[in-house]
């Protein structure tokens, strides 16, 4: 049996914070998800699993989830490819290396909401400079935000622009930590630049790549501000993500009980899917 003494009291502040900001809200949300708390009837009445039954029949939620998966995975992969390319570019000695490295980080240091507002202005179909450039290049103006496919692409574009620097930073740190020796060996062993990248750099970067991809996937799965500012989930529900849909149900429609069940389901799905992704990536890395 645990014998309490003075040292355990040092744990108390942390424990209180943990209970107050994580455990209590989680348990309370769980309880709320079994209630019909809404704008008409606020309170913790017990309705059993009705919210969860409704959720499984709510196609809008599942569509938002699959859309989120597409946008998150798509944008993170593009961020990884561009970030890796940029990191490789400034890894070795180039002119103004330090300046270029800092320059690449500017988008990441900008507030996401403000960045989205700027992008909304840029992509404005009649007033924005994006279509001016398109027309100067001799193409028809594009419906950046008013057709489904283009709106999804626009959200991905803004996400990529904002978060590629983060990927760049992680991957550059990884590249700078790589030992020189395998490169000397590869050169002697007859590997040119292309082969050295695929046989040495890429495999050696695997642990860092997995970490960077997972961090960004976790972040991207919460995709909300960009959608909120840029498209408000539209046109229709074309860019509506899970977080945004939960926000609509909970804080716009005030269906607190139902939104709680959506949140918890979303949380469980994210934990399971990200765990599977992490396991697959780690397994592949170990095997390769």
């Amino acid at each position, binding site marked *: 049996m645990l014998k309490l003494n003075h040292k355990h009291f040092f744990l108390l502040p942390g424990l209180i914070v943990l209970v107050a900001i994580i455990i209590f809200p989680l348990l309370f949300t769980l309880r709320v998800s079994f209630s019909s708390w809404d704008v008409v009837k606020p309170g913790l009445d017990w309705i059993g699993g009705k919210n969860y039954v409704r959720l499984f029949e709510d196609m809008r939620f599942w569509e938002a989830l699959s859309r989120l998966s597409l946008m998150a995975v798509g944008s993170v992969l593009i961020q990884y490819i561009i970030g890796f390319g940029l990191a490789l570019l400034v890894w070795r000695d180039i002119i103004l290396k330090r300046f270029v490295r800092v320059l690449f980080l500017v988008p990441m240091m900008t507030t996401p909401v403000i960045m989205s507002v700027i992008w909304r202005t840029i992509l404005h179909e009649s007033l924005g400079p994006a279509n001016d450039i398109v027309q100067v290049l001799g193409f028809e103006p594009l419906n950046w935000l008013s057709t489904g496919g283009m709106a999804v692409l626009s959200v991905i574009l803004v996400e990529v622009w904002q978060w590629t620097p983060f990927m760049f930073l992680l991957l550059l740190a990884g590249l700078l930590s790589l030992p020189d*020796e*395998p490169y*000397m*060996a590869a050169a*002697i*062993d*007859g590997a040119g630049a292309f082969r050295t990248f695929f046989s040495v750099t890429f*495999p*050696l970067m695997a642990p860092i790549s997995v970490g960077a991809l997972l961090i960004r996937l976790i972040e991207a799965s919460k995709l909300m501000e960009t959608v909120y500012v840029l498209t408000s989930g539209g046109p229709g529900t074309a860019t509506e993500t899970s977080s945004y849909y939960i926000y609509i149900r909970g804080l716009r429609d005030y269906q607190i009980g139902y939104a709680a069940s959506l949140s918890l389901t979303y949380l469980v799905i994210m934990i399971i899917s990200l765990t599977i992704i992490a396991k697959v990536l780690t397994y592949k890395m170990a095997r390769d």
Partner: protein
Amino acid sequence: MALVLQNIDLREDGIAHLDNVSLEFKRGRLYTILGRTLAGKTTLLRTIAGLQHPQRGSMELHGQDYLDIPVWKRSTAMVYQQFINYPHLSALANVMFPLKRAGMSRDKARRRARAVLAGVGLSGFENRRPGALSGGQQQRVALARALVKRADILLLDEPLVNLDYKLREQLREDFQNIFKGQDDAIVIYTTTEPAEAIQLGHEIIVMDEGRVIQQGNSLDVFNAPTTIRCAEVINDPPMNIFSGTIDKGHINLQGDVRLPLPSHLDQLSEGPYRFGLRAADLSINGEIESEVELSEISGSQTILHLRGGIGSFILYEEGVYQYAIGSTVNVSLNPDRIYGFSVQGDLVAAPAPMSKQWR
């Protein structure tokens, strides 16, 4: 058929790493480059491999210019003093790597890699990554990766330096067997240890401060180092050097030490000289009073660092003895083993070769 280097100069930040180096390496022979740290040994190997580029000079392999060939196209294999392998690949995949780069089929590469791994004593370790192998095994993987290429030039840059004594001894013996199978290759081996250079035999090249200071058969270089610098490098501990004169049939050293002139020095005219004597050619029980500055035990030998009237010197004594620092010992010098150098440091007379005495 040879690798010929002529007047190679390589400078970095104003420091000459290679200074007018001209050498010829013949196929089927083992060359040992001996020199202290910063002598230019590694730079020379890296230049031959194509990892560094000289500012001046030429390099030809089998009569064709070799300097303009990029590193990955050179028929060169190299083992470094660090255990350099691909950490993300198994031992087998490491050894297969150069073969796959050369376009060999996977099956054939695997068969050859397995055979070479067995040759360096790593059967059963094929699937382990370098991180799961000991230092000696990692270096064997690196050696196997170098051997499997069957390159024209095999470069070994102090491959034993980071291994413990036992492993070093074991691998040194293995090397001799492995090198016997390299009849078509030029094998160049660098070391800082004279004993290793002499044990490996064949030809020895002594380097110092980026220059080649002597080249020849290993025992010939050991028996007749042409300069004081070379005598210091080829001996471990370094050859003791004393200043003195030859006068009236005697060698006069500092501190009023007078020795009879040995027969191999009697053709030298009278005057100032510098005299060299190996640590093993001094012994305890003589008349030269000296103070013990340091006493070391190495294996079954005792190495004494002494200071007396003749200056500071080192004495090698067979057997393990304890000497208190600051105590006094009486030392004698063996005049028959004294080397005569000019004041400028060039060899003018050497004793009879050691090899003849051994027979």
